[in-house]
């Protein structure tokens, strides 16, 4: 007797826990809410339980063979290919953009049967002064340019200058702005100040999407993470993002879990679908799978697309490419045989 397994699509799915507010068939951008402390104050987050859930996510699900290859390709679509270093130059940014346009070697794409598929990374992410280089290098590719701003990574600059920095990056052509919040506002639970700051930044962004970096490594407690997530969304963030990559602790699964639950709860209350971006420290293809499993388990298919999910990573792409080459050739790959970014 063979097992009759029910395919996932046959399972009667109830309406998604996060309803979607649309206009002309398109999801509506988060318009924010007035500050509402009731949506997060007193919200319990038990760290031990979050860690337990996070620890078993990757052991409860497994993607193998063809499916694994597809999931890795999907990860590429969701990568914000990033360079945020003091020695960034125009040349370095151009190289990065070339990789973003063509993240996978032609022979691998061919073997995977996706030669015809337009495949790029989700975006390129740079400092404001590098935006113009990136915009030029990506022209016609459809790859958006994201810029960090607001005194990245600590954000400890006068608000006026931080808003100016956003406007500068937008003027340079950035499509997305990764802002950092003032951690002090969270640590002092001055939610109004945090709300006002992010709302002002959102206004400064104009049509550019705002990704709010919470720097969760600095916030420490998961209750802080939940509260900061909720305030950022209420103030109009399009994405919430874990880390700058410069804190002592970068993206972790337990922190991400809590942010996703905040995002789910905000969406359930408002109908706005908010994106999520873990960033920092993610290097291995295996991690790309783990985070996607987290997204699928907690939020479902919609959050496996670049409009709602991004990885902030630079070196992960190289490992993914190596794994995909192994998938198509059956031989283990060496990094130096792949085009670097």
């Amino acid at each position, binding site marked *: *007797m063979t097992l009759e397994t029910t395919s996932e699509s046959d399972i*009667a799915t*109830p309406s998604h826990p996060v309803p979607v507010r649309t206009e002309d068939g398109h999801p509506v951008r988060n318009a924010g809410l007035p500050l509402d402390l009731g949506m997060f104050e007193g919200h319990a*987050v038990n760290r031990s339980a979050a860690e*337990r859930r996070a620890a078993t996510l990757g052991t409860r699900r*497994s993607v193998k*063979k063809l*499916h694994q290859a597809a999931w890795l390709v999907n990860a590429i679509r969701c990568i914000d290919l990033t360079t945020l270093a003091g020695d960034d130059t125009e040349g370095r940014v151009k190289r990065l953009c070339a990789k973003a346009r063509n993240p996978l070697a032609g022979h691998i794409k061919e073997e995977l049967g996706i030669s015809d598929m337009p495949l790029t990374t989700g975006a390129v992410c740079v400092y404001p002064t590098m935006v113009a280089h990136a915009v030029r290098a990506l022209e016609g590719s459809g790859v958006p340019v994201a810029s960090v701003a607001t005194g990245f990574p600590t954000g400890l600059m006068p608000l006026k200058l931080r808003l100016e920095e956003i406007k500068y990056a937008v003027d340079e052509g950035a499509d997305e702005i990764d802002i950092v919040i003032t951690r002090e506002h969270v640590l002092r639970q001055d939610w109004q100040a945090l709300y006002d700051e992010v709302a002002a930044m959102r206004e400064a962004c104009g049509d550019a999407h705002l990704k709010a970096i919470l720097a969760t490594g600095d916030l420490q407690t998961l209750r802080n993470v939940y509260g900061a997530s909720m305030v950022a969304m209420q103030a109009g963030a399009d994405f919430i993002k874990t880390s700058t990559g410069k804190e002592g602790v970068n993206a972790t699964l337990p922190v991400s879990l809590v942010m996703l639950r905040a995002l789910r709860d905000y969406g359930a209350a408002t109908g706005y679908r908010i994106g999520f971006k873990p960033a920092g420290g993610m290097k291995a293809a295996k991690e790309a799978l783990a985070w996607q499993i987290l997204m699928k*388990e907690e939020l479902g*298919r919609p959050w496996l697309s670049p409009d709602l999910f991004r990885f902030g990573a630079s070196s992960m792409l190289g490992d993914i490419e190596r794994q995909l080459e192994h998938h198509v050739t059956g031989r283990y790959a060496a990094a130096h045989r792949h085009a670097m970014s």
Partner: protein
Amino acid sequence: MTTIANILDTMEYGPAPEDASIVTDWLARHADGFGHFIDGSFTRPGETFEVMNPATGDVIARASQGTTEDVDAAVAAARKAQPKWAALSGHERARHLYALARHVQQHARFLAVLESLDNGKPIRESRDIDIPLVARHLYHHAGWAEIAKDEFPGTAPHGVCGQVIPWNFPLLMLAWKVAPALAAGNTVVLKPAEYTPLTALAFAGIVEECGLPKGVVNIVTGDGDTGGAIAGHKDIDKVAFTGSTEVGKLIRRQTAGSGKALTLELGGKSPFVVFADADLDAAVEGVVDAIWFNQGQVCCAGARILVAEAVADRFAGLLRARMETLRTGDPLDKCTDVGAIVHPVQLDRIKTLMERGVAEGAKLHQVAAPQGCFYPPTLATEVEPASVLATEEIFGPVATLTTFRTPEDAVALANNTRYGLAASIWSENVNLCLDVAAKVKAGVVWINCTNVLDAGAGFGGYRESGFGREGGREGMMAYLAHPKPRAKSGAKELPAPDAAPHAAGAESGIDRTAKLYVGGKQARPDSGYVYAVEGPKGPVGRAGLGNRKDIRNAVEAAAKAGGWGKATGHNRAQVLYYVGENLAARSAEFEQRLRSFGATEKAARAEVEASVRRCFWYAAQADKFDGAVHQTKPAHVTLAMHEPLGVVGIVAPTAHPLLGALSTVLPAIAMGNSVVLVPSQTHPLAATDLYQVLDTSDIPGGVVNIVTGPRDSLARTLAQHDEVAAMWYFGTADGCATVEADSAGNLKQTWVEDEAARDWSGGAGQGRGFLHRATQVKNIWVPYGE
């Protein structure tokens, strides 16, 4: 054909099968059937039965039906091997257990795949939970083997252990049984469940591979008859059983009066209590780990969700959404959360119970499951406390959801069950969590977590969930015994009390009437009769002729005295010192009483002095016999707390009318129990004199109740009373057997002994052993981290 483009569209997981070929090849090599593992080698297969993979219905092996001859042979092998095994140094036994642990780890994947094939549990669980816990248990007990002599002085192994284990965690339950038994120096005859014998047989192969001495571990396969033959075997010294409460009671009756030690780990209907301030998402994941773990076939499963009304709708919504992502199906697929039900018989049982529940008004919320031996993850709502779904252990992936209003309401609902195995409590308020943990009747309490297990902590239940613990120090105690005192000749039957009037004996002074003592008040016996208390030269007084109604009243009074158990040890110590003080002040009177029964002056003085000393000894222990913090998992505090049992029925020895009563009552009340005492039938007046001492010593009413009269009929009423949690009986061999058999009704813990065996005046008359008898261990798991 599935292409990458298709998958990118759906983002499904796709199949992720575990390769089972090494295991199926092994099974193919044993296609002729497995024999038993007796005296170090496998027997030729006898009459065999089919072993099935429940996920596919395929017959994957044949195992032998163990006959009484097979059991005889296995017991004989174990008996022969035991003295030598016990005589090995702890270090040598530790090396053997260490080798078993190492080899289990080396064969971990083999065992995991085999377990999933045989039982139907998801490979994730057998791989990540069952088998690692097996290895951990063996390592932990390699340690106990090494140090048992130092840590448990004065104890010895029981001898040959007969062990019968269930099908839900086949190899893990084997490890829980075999590891402590071997560490303590016992040898074993173990029967795995009929549905799932294969990992035990593979383990037998590992025993061979490790070179364990022949006969130390014997595995006999078969059905319940084989299990009965083991439990009832005359040459088995200790029986350990994990399984249903129904079979546990049969074994209790079967072994009554045999002198066999017995531990039972039985069913449960554990509460899962969610307070309004809990992390609700965390609690939802808790439910997944509680009832959708191992298809809900878990004795400690949090099957009864009790949720605060204030958050019930939100919680139920989150839970239903979470259920949608559970994947039920092929146990060998690495993406499976819920596998196959162990056997079609069990599936039918689940379905029947669910039909009854629905007929009683329950509403079911279910998610998808494949055809075959699978049952969908289910949430049942509108389940009233009287519903079959709330009272019966379903042993399937079914949780019920009931709301409560207040913490008091939650505790009342949580304890509204015959069982008492485990409880899970969810709240961010540490005061509330620990308060409820203290009030809930369960051997294992998980705070903000569930089904967390470790060899370092004891596991086992209260009430009809059984007695004895597995794991940790308390688990080792179940496989070691203090040498039993033996009577030179067995205690005799007592003459029936004579309730007719008598010519006066040696009485003098103002006439005194001894009554019963119930709820802190003197009470006339319900019968309206008194019986003569004999002295050396005829009757010296009369005592009330108690009957079953007096026992009923006394138990009711004792049950109401629960506040005593919540008092501090210091408070109880103060009262016990006061008893000693008042007893000493009346020593002349008590000596006189004892002399009237025929004691010499010297003996009477010694008995009263020993009684006063015993008051002080147990007063001293009252605030010192405390629990432990176990070493278990990282970022967990695991508290092993000694708790009183509740109402303890005590039938005191006949000799030493005063000291015998106090030697048994004092340890019980020092630990916070309340007691119903049946004092020496022939000389009850020393005990009835005590009630004036108790009154003047601030013992709260109902903590000590005294019913005089015919010992063995009062003992039976006590043993049959469902409110009595434990029964200590010192009398005849027949009385011991009757008490043990009658205790099966609510599975009360028993301590029975020939009344002539123990020297009550000496060191054997008191000790920590008495305190262990007077307490049960509650393990409370508190994870931490911010």
